[in-house]
């Protein structure tokens, strides 16, 4: 699998896929897409990078351990549900706030943070399984 062509192009493919996964994640609120499918795309990007450049470089590129990323995602999802404590509504009641960012009105909401949490859980969990399986293949 480690041909020159694949090795040269894999970083670009990976970068594009990660970008696309974030696009899919963010459009998921009203249109097809969302955290789970976005996470799967990002995890496959990671797997491609792992195949082309080796598992070690892929892990180094991630900086954090994939399981830690998954844990952070779960934490984020749980905390996004917790915000409604302060508005005296039940757990997971969605909260919305519109902020003005460089002249553009941006809607921020707890479902979005929940979805980002799901994205990170999927990237972390599937990525760690994929990397573990690729590691076995090489030795």
């Amino acid at each position: 699998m480690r041909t020159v062509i694949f090795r040269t192009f894999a970083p670009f493919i990976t970068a594009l896929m990660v970008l696309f996964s974030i696009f899919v994640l963010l459009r998921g609120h009203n249109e097809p897409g969302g955290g789970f499918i976005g996470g799967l795309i990002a995890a496959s990007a990671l797997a491609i990078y792992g195949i082309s450049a080796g598992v070690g470089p892929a892990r180094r590129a991630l900086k954090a351990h994939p399981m830690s990323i998954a844990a952070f995602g779960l934490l984020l999802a749980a905390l996004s549900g917790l915000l409604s404590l302060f508005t005296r509504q039940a757990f997971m009641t969605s909260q919305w706030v519109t902020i003005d960012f460089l002249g553009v009105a941006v809607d921020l909401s707890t479902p979005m943070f929940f979805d980002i949490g799901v994205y990170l859980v999927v990237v972390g969990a599937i990525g760690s399984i994929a990397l573990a399986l690729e590691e076995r293949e090489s030795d």
Partner: protein
Amino acid sequence: MAGSSTTVDIAQAMFTEPVAFADWLVIAPSILTIIGGTLCLITRKQTTLAPKLGLFFLGLLVLNNVMLLAEVLKRGVITMVMGNWLPPFGIAFTVDALGATLALVAAIVAFSAGLYASITIDSSGKRYGFYPFLLLMMTGANGAFLTGDIFNMYVWFEVLLISSYGLLVLGNDRAQLDGTVKYGILNLIGTNLFLIATGLLYGQLGTLNMADITMKVRESGVSGPLMTIAVLYFLAFAMKAAAFPVNFWLPSSYHTPRIVVAAVFAGLLTKVGVYALLRTLVMLMPAARTELAEIIAWVAALTMLTGVIGALAQSDLRRMLGYLVISGIGSMLAGIAMGSVLALSGTVFYAVHSILVMTALYMAAGLMAAMAGSYDLRRLGGLYGASPVLAGVFLVLALAVAGLPPFSGFWPKVMLVDAALTLGWNWLAASILVTGFLTSLAVGRVWIYAFWRGGPEGTVDGGSVSLPGGGVLTLGAQGQSTAAVWVPIGILTALVILFGLQPEWMMEVSSRGASGLVDPVGYLRSVFGGGA
């Protein structure tokens, strides 16, 4: 939707009145354990920080569940619907006395295990993630005890199961892999059966909210499809609870993991299955339970007897205890078979007793093996000289598990036997008593061999042999304080003695739980408001 200008009367779809802070106690066990579990997972490489974080959150969990039980006993059933959607559309967390009691006992056991593990699990086990898995397993267990939605319960079962896989392979030796394969596959089949039944139930009734199901089933009466669903639930949860004849995964896996993992499993996992049986058969489908009563009774009697006979045939202490777990499940099933409030209270009390005593027994077995170097009955001996305290503790636990007074196992058995005699099911009462007798033989033999005799097999009568390591408790690093293993055993044994000497409170709580199952009017009112 933010930004849209249309106005909608959301009062038709959502709760609009503010939610009391006390209601958050209902969901807090899951949130606390998720937050604690993820923090432990992120910090798991720091082997001194992660256990402290884990214990802190388990402590919070115990505290929260104490308050939750107090609140439930004061106010009755509490409901919180996620996202404020009106039931039956939102996922409801509905907590009654039964769920709150079991959640509290589970939290106490998990805290004890966390403490016990702080020195018995080595640092590679901690780096692998003992604490995150323990906390996430508690997320699953608490969620299953507290949820009021049948599909949500399935999800919590899976959370529980996947974390238990992680705990079970912790250590990665050959026997563990072998045990985990069997445990993993058979339990996955069990949860698939649960899912099948839930899918069929949804097709039949069009709802997943337990209160709604309760009402609709009571309106429609028994029908063929509902009977099928009830049988599927019985099979699925009997598998989870390790009832005869679908219990083979338990003795082939429970002796392989680290002893503290086995302790938590023996205490908790099977009782989650019993809880689910109580919820589905007794509360959701009482008419189907009546039809199945005879079969459940036979399964119960066979589970008790095969369990205890299996225990008598084992020479490995951990495997013997595994069979005793099964035997205890039989007694709980007997209560479900009878279905009267007295019998069901007996089941609930027995579940609490069994969680406490089985965990403590496994922990004590871990100490015995740490002193004598083996779990094999033939190679244990002379432990009385090494640690009279442990001998006393083990004797208390042995008498409790056999159901002898004045310990916690006595009262639920009294309630169950009383209920069986009232119903005229003398053979069931007899099998409970025979099981008690055989259990006392099995555990009495352990006590006599491990503690009373002078040394392992081959020691002359009246002689004594010094144990390897001089019988000194060597756990973890040399010179480390062993308080962290004695305190949890102490807590659990104290509760066993307390419930034995002062059973009234526990009886009261479990009979409230049981009557809430038989006549769930409070449950329905809590979910649907005063009108229902």
